[in-house]
């Protein structure tokens, strides 16, 4: 099933491997559409994106993608139940205002949901906090506090606990440090966590 590419972002490769061929995918916060384009090309999925940034929309359209211009918070609620096999929130969940509501909706609209999140508890971030007393700028969180698009800061463990609390089933969890998978102590050594979840 696995299709390996040299120049693909490692998180995109993981998501590519999680998604079944010819399925339907809704990518929330799809950006310029690189992941959707890959999914359509390699997995023949039927893809739809939602994106707030108009310049990113133009790039999506140039790739031939179907995309809605709008914010995730309001864009999702209009879809019917189980409209998609997968709803993807890759590196976008932490930027959504009402995360809880969106996740409930994503699990309603999609049969499965894939969440990719930057790990706030990455060891370099911890070092910056502990020894320097500064808000971390490290790993998948490269922004200064005054310019970050992120509204929520969470760790891989936080999200696992959230899923337990909300009785969301974690089908797969893949943690990445750079290009490599992190099998142990992921909350310390992984920069990115990717979860395949379902209700």
């Amino acid at each position, binding site marked *: 099933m696995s299709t390996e590419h040299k120049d693909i972002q490692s998180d995109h490769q993981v998501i590519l491997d999680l998604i079944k061929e010819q399925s339907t995918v809704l990518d929330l916060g799809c950006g310029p559409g690189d992941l959707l384009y890959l999914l359509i090309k390699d997995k023949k999925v039927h893809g739809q994106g939602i994106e707030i940034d108009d310049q990113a929309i*133009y790039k999506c359209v140039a790739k031939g993608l179907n995309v809605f211009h709008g914010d995730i918070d309001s864009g999702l609620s209009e879809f019917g139940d189980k409209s998609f096999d997968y709803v993807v929130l890759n590196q976008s969940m932490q930027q959504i205002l009402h995360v809880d509501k969106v996740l409930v909706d994503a699990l309603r609209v999609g049969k499965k949901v894939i969440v990719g999140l930057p790990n706030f508890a990455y060891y370099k971030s911890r070092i910056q906090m502990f020894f320097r007393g500064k808000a971390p700028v490290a790993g998948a969180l490269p922004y200064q506090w005054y310019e970050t698009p992120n509204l929520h800061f969470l760790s891989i463990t936080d999200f696992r606990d959230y899923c337990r609390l909300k009785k969301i089933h974690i089908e797969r969890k893949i943690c990445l440090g750079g290009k490599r998978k992190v099998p142990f102590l992921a909350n310390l050594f992984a920069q990115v966590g990717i979860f395949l979840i379902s209700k």
Partner: protein
Amino acid sequence: MDKEKKTNQSNSVGIVKTKNFTFDSLKLENGEKFGPVTLAYETYGVLNPEKTNAILIVHALTGDAHAAGVHEGKDNFGWWDNFIGPGKAFDTDKYFIICSNVFGGCKGSTGPSSINPKTGKAYALDFPLISINDIVNAQKHLIDHLGIEKLLSVVGGSMGGHQVLSWLANYSKRLRSAIPIATTIKHSPQQIAFNEVGRQSIMADANWKSGNYYEGSAPSKGLAVARMIGHITYMSDKSMAEKFGRTKKRMSEPFKFTADFEVEGYLRYRGDNFVKRFDANSYLYITKAMDNFDASFGKPLQEILRGIKTKVLIISFKSDWLYPAYQSKEIVKACKLAGVETTYCEIDSTYGHDAFLLEVQEESHLIRHFLKKVFYTYEVTGEYGA
């Protein structure tokens, strides 16, 4: 709509001719039969042997069949010339473009100013009340006549968008794609209100004479005021401020209420020019058709759209307050619920409703790539140039 725009004459379609197509009878939505009907139309580019590259462009309230190029001996570039031509969004090297004047219009197609063959006089108010669906049905006669089974796309802004939605609701099997721009499923009370003020202005003109003015003076003042109101709604607060500011014209007329401000002069100029090219009764009939239009016949649009294979590109503009983005989003929502393959973009523009004629770069980008994808996916087997 505002015709002031830069025209890139280097990739124009060149000299074009308006043609006529006449058919005997049109069954109207209200059950009546009306005929004969003539449609004035123009075409640009070449229809391929498989007849799979045809795009129908449908015009807004006061548009006409002359969408691109110039007429022999004139420099009257068509109303969407920036979008139609070799290498442009509607690339005439690849596509065959059709544009017709609407049924009920006054630019060559049968309308209230046409001669009724039974009386030898203009129809005036004997012309039947028409609907957007009637306008589209007349277009369908033309598309049948041209031997085109399936259009690559039907495209239009504003009232053109109404026609696109009517095509989508009634004849989706004849469409590979549809591009409704700056439009709505149905008019809001505010939109109806602006149209009504325009109509009242025409009917309040003493020259209107219940529509029987064709042998005397036309209700030009009333029509000019209707057009002035229209122009205000086509612009935005910001685009007016940028275009006119509070600049005053230097006038030495003795009258107290001259057009002191630039904006006043502009509106008067636009109004006075408009009456030279447009028929007041057509204005009444067509605005009424717009107000009565409901793409989904009172039902939720998604019920009408469910199961259709047509791909849809919906475009709105940020500063458009006549057809605000929320109305386009209602179309988007219906497409979502109906499972229609859809792309939606709200273009960041300050031009107001007129943006659909003026935002050449962004709009062209969206249309060009969308059409390419539709054409590519469905039809083209060989390599297709960028």
